[in-house]
């Protein structure tokens, strides 16, 4: 099974960009959503989801195979990616 | 250049207990507040981004800035969430029924 990765991000957050860039560079497919650029009617629900997963309001929120990592933290990303021994 | 000097402002009776009034000695924005009977004078300028504090809610000695809700103890000027930050404070006295504030020289 391939790794399942979702990145919750803000368009205004450089660490969110770095996170996506890191997955791009590592050639790991991921789904990403910029919460603040969603249409108004979706924004609250997706933001609440990210807040609930992370227990706070900090971005990025990265979910790797069900594990939640808050912040740009390549070491922790690697720990949870199966292809990398996680 | 002149040194600090005492500047008369408004009648003492105009500042009620638990309330504040904005005055402008030598053009400087100052809030006069009376808390538990004592008078205090602080800069009418928030330590965060410089908003005028006038219009903010006073609760006991604590004034909340109307701009982004930073809270200050008007007795000392100190910001409640980080004591390293504070509003400027000025000496006050009452003479002949008027509140005088000592403000810096220009």
């Amino acid at each position: 099974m391939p790794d399942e990765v979702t990145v919750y991000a803000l368009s205004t957050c450089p660490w969110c960009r770095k996170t996506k860039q890191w997955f791009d560079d590592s050639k790991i497919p991921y789904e990403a959503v910029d919460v603040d650029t969603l249409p108004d009617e979706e924004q609250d629900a997706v933001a609440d989801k990210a807040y609930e997963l992370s227990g706070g309001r900090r971005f990025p929120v990265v979910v790797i195979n069900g594990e939640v990592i808050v912040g740009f933290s390549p070491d922790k990303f690697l720990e949870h990616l199966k292809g990398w021994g996680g | 250049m002149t040194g600090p000097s005492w500047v008369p402002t408004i009648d003492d009776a105009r500042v009620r207990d638990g309330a504040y009034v904005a005055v402008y000695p030598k053009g400087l924005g100052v809030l006069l507040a009376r808390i538990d009977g004592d008078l205090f004078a602080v800069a009418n300028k928030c330590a965060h981004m410089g908003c005028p504090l006038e219009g903010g809610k006073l609760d006991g000695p604590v004034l909340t800035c109307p701009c982004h809700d930073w809270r200050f103890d008007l007795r000392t000027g100190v910001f409640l969430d980080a004591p390293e930050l504070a509003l400027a404070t000025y000496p006050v006295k009452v003479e002949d029924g008027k509140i005088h504030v000592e403000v810096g020289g220009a």
Partner: protein
Amino acid sequence: MGSEARKESLRYLFDRVVQPLGYKFTPDEELADFLLEQEVKLEQDLGAPFCPCQGRTGVRAEDMLICCPCIPFHREHFDAMKRCWCGLFVHLDVTDPDSLPQFPPDEV
């Protein structure tokens, strides 16, 4: 006020706030510039320079805790990282901001 001018005034205003708290602007000029740019936009759109890396809830009392500089409200967490969450401010002694990790408060 133009957004360049507002950026400069935020620099001036925030410097006065963060210095006494033991912080300075990140030496990473590009990062500082990008973040200030975002804050100017957020201030224009929403009325306050909110943190570009934290989400808002629409509840004023909660959102004002991420109005920049938000160090006073997250002191323990930021002191542990030697930086604020978005990295706009770092401890005064930091010269290599890239070496500072970003971790959530429950790992302090």
